């Protein structure tokens, strides 16, 4: 599925690529390693995220002006109405340029929320928001996870209560990346407590500066931030800002997750962060990219067969990760594997990250846990503290294994006692009290 109609004449991909290459060269500076404000922020304290966001918005605006924004989005919303091949061609060419970090910064907006809005949003919502996304005005986030919910996204207990032409939302969301500098959110809230959990949820558009909505950056084990927790205290949104149908929010959330998986697997038709393989050691990778060969040399281990094998093992995992990514794109495109096969890549990336993190610790030895200088996060051991993050965030490895075994392999589903119960009868976790609230 692409956003073009077959009746239109479409520019040839190679001619498009040539135009893009020329334009990029005239417009942007070349860089060796494009900035990744999102990944970097998880490690480094004190990065100015508002400046990052401003730069990314500017980059996206320039793309729009050059005619290279929203390449596969319909023209009526400010897109170019082209095909995935054009998108991939453009991204491939753009890899070497500094686009202000707009690639990663707009990944969620244009790769997940935009496509979902396009599929399920009302005409009014699409007209209101899609052009602003494409021209770099607004960054979007998703409010799915809750402190009480863990992996069980459909067990959301944030409540939305109808009040005339509005809904009033109260509750808490967590693990929202980018909420502290973005503009709008998709918010999943419970609108009916008397039906089973998947059938009482509704998805709302919530402006991040709405009264009653408080966004708190979450401090991570590394000392840095990068995710937020939000507290909704009677936040009022218009009933017209429901995405999809009332009580059909799970459908919307499911589409979001599909788009997320596609984006991670590099298979998105709407926003392609990098087809060149530079994110090959897992799109969810966090922490520094360490040159392990250099580390081994610096630690005097270049002649040690055990250390040499560790260096090679990490390299093998990175190479195979890239090869697997490419294979799975083909397999899902051909229908040899179902879309859920994206979970295979997520799981591979996470487990490869774990192993690479262990290898890094082993090669760094004492110097990884005690180090000179003033920087408390300079030691490689600090990255080790965050080792599991890639195996937890955006769907834990346990959830990925469930998905693979049930939806790729067709093994029987786990018994879920809550599946058919009215939600108010389901055993769930209680919301921890907020310090100072009530």
């Amino acid at each position, binding site marked *: 599925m692409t956003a073009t109609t077959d009746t239109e004449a479409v520019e040839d991909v190679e001619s498009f690529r040539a135009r893009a290459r020329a334009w990029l060269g005239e417009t942007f500076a070349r860089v060796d390693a494009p900035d990744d404000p999102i990944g970097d922020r998880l490690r480094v304290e004190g990065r100015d995220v508002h400046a990052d966001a401003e730069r990314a918005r500017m980059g996206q605006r320039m793309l729009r002006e050059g005619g290279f924004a929203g390449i596969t989005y319909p023209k009526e919303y400010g897109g170019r109405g082209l095909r995935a091949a054009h998108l991939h061609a453009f991204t491939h060419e753009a890899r070497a340029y500094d686009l202000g970090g707009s690639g990663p910064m707009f990944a969620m907006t244009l790769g997940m929320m935009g496509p979902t809005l396009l599929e399920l949003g009302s005409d009014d919502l699409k007209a209101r928001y899609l052009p602003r996304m494409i021209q770099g005005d607004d960054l979007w986030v998703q409010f799915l996870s809750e402190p009480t919910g863990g992996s069980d996204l459909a067990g959301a207990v944030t409540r939305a209560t109808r009040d005339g032409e509005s809904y009033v939302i109260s509750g808490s969301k967590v693990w929202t990346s980018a909420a502290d500098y973005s503009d709008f959110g998709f918010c999943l809230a419970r609108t009916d407590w008397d039906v089973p959990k998947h059938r009482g949820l509704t998805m709302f558009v919530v402006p991040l500066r709405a009264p009653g909505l408080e966004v708190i950056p979450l401090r991570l084990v590394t000392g840095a931030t990068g995710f937020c927790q939000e507290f909704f205290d009677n936040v009022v949104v218009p009933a017209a800002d429901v995405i999809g149908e009332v009580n059909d929010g799970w459908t919307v959330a499911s589409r979001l997750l599909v788009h997320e998986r596609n984006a991670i697997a590099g298979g998105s038709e709407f926003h392609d962060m990098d087809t060149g393989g530079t994110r090959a050691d897992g799109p969810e990778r966090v922490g520094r990219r360490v040159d392990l*060969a250099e580390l*081994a*040399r610096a630690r005097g281990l*270049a002649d040690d*067969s055990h250390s*040499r*094998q560790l*260096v*090679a*093992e990490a*390299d*093998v995992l990175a*190479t*195979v990760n890239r*090869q*697997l990514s*490419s*294979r*799975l794109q*083909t*397999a899902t495109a*051909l229908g*040899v594997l179902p879309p859920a*096969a994206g979970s*295979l890549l997520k*799981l*591979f990336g996470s*487990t490869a990250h774990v192993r690479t993190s262990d290898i890094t610790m082993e090669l760094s030895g004492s110097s990884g846990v005690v180090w000179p200088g003033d920087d408390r996060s300079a030691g490689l051991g600090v990255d080790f503290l965050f080792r599991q993050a890639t195996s937890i965030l955006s769907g834990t490895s*346990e959830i*990925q*294994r*469930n998905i*693979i*075994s*049930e939806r*790729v*392999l*067709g*093994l*029987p589903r*786990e018994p879920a006692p809550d599946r058919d119960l009215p939600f108010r009868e389901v055993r769930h976790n209680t919301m921890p009290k907020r310090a100072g609230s009530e």
Partner: protein
Amino acid sequence: MELELQDDQELFVETTRRFLEAESPLTRVRDLYEDPVGFDRDYWRRGAELGWATMLVPEELGGGSVSGAGLLDLELVAEEMGRTVAPGPLLPVNVVADTLARSGRPDQQEAELAGLVSGERIATWAFAEPSSRWDAGGVALGASERDGAWVLSGTKSYVQDAAVADEWLVTARTGDSLTQFLVAAGTPGVTVAPLQSLDMTRRFGDVVFDGATVDGSAVVGRVGDAAADVERQLQVALTVQNAETVGAVNRVYEFTLEYAQDRMAFGRPIGSYQALKHRFADMKMWLEACNATATASARAVQAGADDAPKLVSTAKAYIGDRAPAIVQDCVQLHGGIGVTWEHDLHLYLRRVAQNAALYGSARDHRLRVATLLGV
């Protein structure tokens, strides 16, 4: 394994698969356990008629491949043979045919290739030695020139089908460099000592050269210039081996997954237990990764890519570790029946474990990757 095949390739795979099902069922593999040769020459000839030995030989030399990318077609055959743990000298014959086609003199090509391609003759590569190093540095067997002839002394080991081969392609040390010789079986001064093998049907031998003398015409390629040929031979051998291993593991995984869906324990299919489901998920991930790296490295070798040496070693390092681990976990998932002779699992485990160790173990190839990374 390869996801996108040309129509010709589909047909080729289908033909090979049907031939193997008919001519080499697992009951036949079991019978061959007692056979000192391990395969039937007629079976091999008829396989060769399907094209099993032509793929790396250009058409003008009597070969040809269905897709034009011979190594990728060979990969497909190797995978099918892995799926049925089929017998036969696929790897050594193709390695030697490839070397002759690339580096042999026209008279050698003339004399040898037709027989190899038709399956009438069998040749094998005598490279490793009792030190069991699978790199050029491990070649100690010496060749010295005397009056236009060459005298070979030393021992080659782990030589597949050594006893049945009509020729051995021998990698020898000539001073600081390597030279290869095509030595006919029966040459005086050469003896073959059979070795035992873990695989049900694959046979190996030591080939001992005790001052054996061969004519100067036995040299393949230029004297002292075999390094590139040896690298190519290793790449071809590893491509075949990786494909075969991956084919075997794909098949084991398939029937184990089926078994888990059917087999009941405590009133539920064992495949409904989450701990097992998650292991099947992990195995699927490793298996797709094995497939991915096998095909990616085969393509690199086919294309003669600069990074082919690293990608081939990467594939072997990954597959050599994961493949036996997956098959062993499939044994575990079968329970007691999985460690009986009567179950077919061990036929696969033997092949996969043997492949893991030959042509360089995962460890050896990690060290090669490290060297290529400059450490």
